[in-house]
């Protein structure tokens, strides 16, 4: 039974995104316009921008990445939406998912009927050490960062706790990367539209071209296991365990349920939503899971009146490979300590019992942090509407879930969407 306390329902009537990647010749405004054009192209009924009453932007840190704060009104103006309310929402890498939830709450309250949600980050203009520094401000900069922690480091530490607690096989992390790249290879918006096998073959070919001995990797797994192909970042997280540094924008149009069919023949409905917070990593009773994710998931399931087995597909926050495995347990798809086995057994692949990250996830699609949570909604919207092309799940999926984490788990927001016939 659904236990929603919302005054009215909310639907997603359109979604779109820029390509994710590294775009030195574009500014964040260019990417945002690209996402808006994609949303308009994807809508089956033409959108009149004058109907948009408010704008919520998920953005982690344009102040650090672009030296531009107060970005929401600028972007609203760039789309010709001034003078509507324009609000930037910041919860680190969960900013996009939180913006979706805040927009939905604004509609549920009755204040607005039609709200545009954007997610955006332009990260690649900084040097990698500066990006690491900027991302570090999402952690506790007084007590965690001075110890030497980085974001890969936080998830790596959780990975050591996970490996230790469950006697897990580290190769499970590599299997997550291989699977997400296989999905990303079928996504023309992905930063890496390439399988790891293709990346490996490219590296071999380049070595030969440069007159060096050809590396002997026979499989993608062998390549990932070799530090020469896949160097350490923060042990046990290697380069291919990490999502990339990305530029990108994503967008979704949310309206009140009663208006949904005016905007689209095929809306999807936001039927469950939850959000929770937590302290820094050392304050948590467990390091092998993310408690805020479990709490946000429970709230969302309860509101929707659903259980984990009702979810046909999930886009989860795989900022690092271990995060996807923890998410698959925090969301109840698999029992504690079983997520790594499920990943190795292919249960989270497109043809598995719990498909995860059909878009390629943050790992292959890219992770422009403020855009990621909205990008997840774009994939769910496409999959539920049968618009996901080569990576489309068979059997007409009906229920999709997004799971978006900020920091090392200080924020988690979970949203559940439903297609109705």
């Amino acid at each position: 039974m659904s236990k929603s306390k919302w005054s009215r329902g909310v639907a997603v009537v359109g979604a779109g995104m820029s390509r994710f990647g590294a775009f030195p010749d574009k500014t964040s405004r260019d990417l945002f316009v690209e996402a808006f054009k994609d949303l308009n192209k994807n809508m089956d009924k033409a959108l009149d921008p004058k109907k948009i009453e408010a704008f919520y932007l998920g953005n982690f840190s344009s102040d650090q990445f672009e030296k531009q704060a107060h970005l929401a009104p600028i972007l609203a103006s760039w789309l010709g939406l001034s003078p509507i309310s324009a609000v930037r929402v910041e919860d680190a890498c969960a900013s996009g998912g939180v913006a979706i939830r805040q927009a939905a709450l604004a509609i549920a309250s009755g204040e607005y009927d039609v709200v545009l949600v954007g997610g955006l980050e332009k990260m690649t203009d900084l040097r990698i050490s500066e990006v690491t520094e900027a991302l570090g401000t999402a952690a506790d900069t007084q007590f965690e960062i001075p110890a030497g922690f980085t974001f890969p480091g936080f998830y790596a530490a959780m990975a050591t706790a996970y490996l230790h607690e469950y006697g897990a096989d580290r190769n499970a992390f590599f299997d997550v990367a291989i699977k997400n790249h296989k999905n990303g290879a079928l996504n023309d918006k992905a930063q890496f539209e390439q399988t790891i096998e293709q990346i490996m073959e490219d590296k071999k070919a380049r070595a030969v071209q440069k007159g060096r001995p050809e590396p002997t990797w026979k499989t993608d797994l062998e390549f990932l296991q070799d530090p020469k192909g896949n160097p350490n970042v923060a042990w046990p997280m290697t380069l291919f365990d990490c999502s990339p540094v990305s530029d990108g924008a994503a967008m979704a149009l949310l309206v009140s349920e009663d208006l949904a069919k005016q905007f689209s023949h095929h809306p999807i409905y936001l039927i469950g939503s939850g959000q929770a917070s937590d302290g820094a990593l050392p304050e948590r009773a467990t390091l092998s899971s993310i408690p805020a994710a479990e709490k946000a998931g429970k709230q969302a399931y309860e509101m929707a009146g659903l259980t984990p087995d009702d979810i046909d597909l999930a886009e989860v926050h795989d900022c690092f490979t271990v995060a996807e495995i923890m998410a698959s347990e925090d969301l109840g798809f698999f029992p504690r300590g079983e997520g790594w086995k499920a990943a190795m057994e292919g249960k989270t692949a497109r043809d598995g019992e719990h498909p995860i990250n059909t878009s390629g996830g943050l790992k292959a699609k890219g992770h422009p942090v403020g855009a990621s949570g909205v990008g997840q909604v774009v994939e769910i919207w496409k999959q539920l509407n049968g618009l996901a092309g080569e990576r489309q799940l068979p059997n007409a999926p009906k229920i999709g879930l997004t799971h978006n984490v900020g920091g090392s788990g200080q924020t988690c927001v979970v949203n559940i969407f439903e297609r109705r016939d």
Partner: protein
Amino acid sequence: MNDYALVNKEFFRALEAGELIGSKCLDCGEFSIPQREICPFCHSTNIEVVTFSGKGKLVAYTVISVPPVKMAQAGYDSKNPYCVGIVELAEGPRISAQILEMDLAHPEAIAIGTELVMTTIQREEDGVQKAYLAFKPA
């Protein structure tokens, strides 16, 4: 009880003196590090500053090859990685710290549960030497 005040900056003043301080809630008895003016367990403000024994054990760790700017300034890189981890103090609470004297060439052999003792490490930050929290095997 010691002479440190119940504000965040005192943690770093104590560290310069080689001491590890935190707080104890006089109502529920829970320890916190860093110190908290409001007990996160029972919301009491009946709190005193305490000095920890400095003994603890490793509960999670990583060996970092791609350091942030400040650790790079201190001389760390992919050829000279460092270990950072989360330490559970003998008194109960946990804190992040650099972990010294570990076999960085074999990170898989670093053992969770290793008994540790508090120390400090001097790192240069913007031209000034500063003491940072670290632990080493007991």
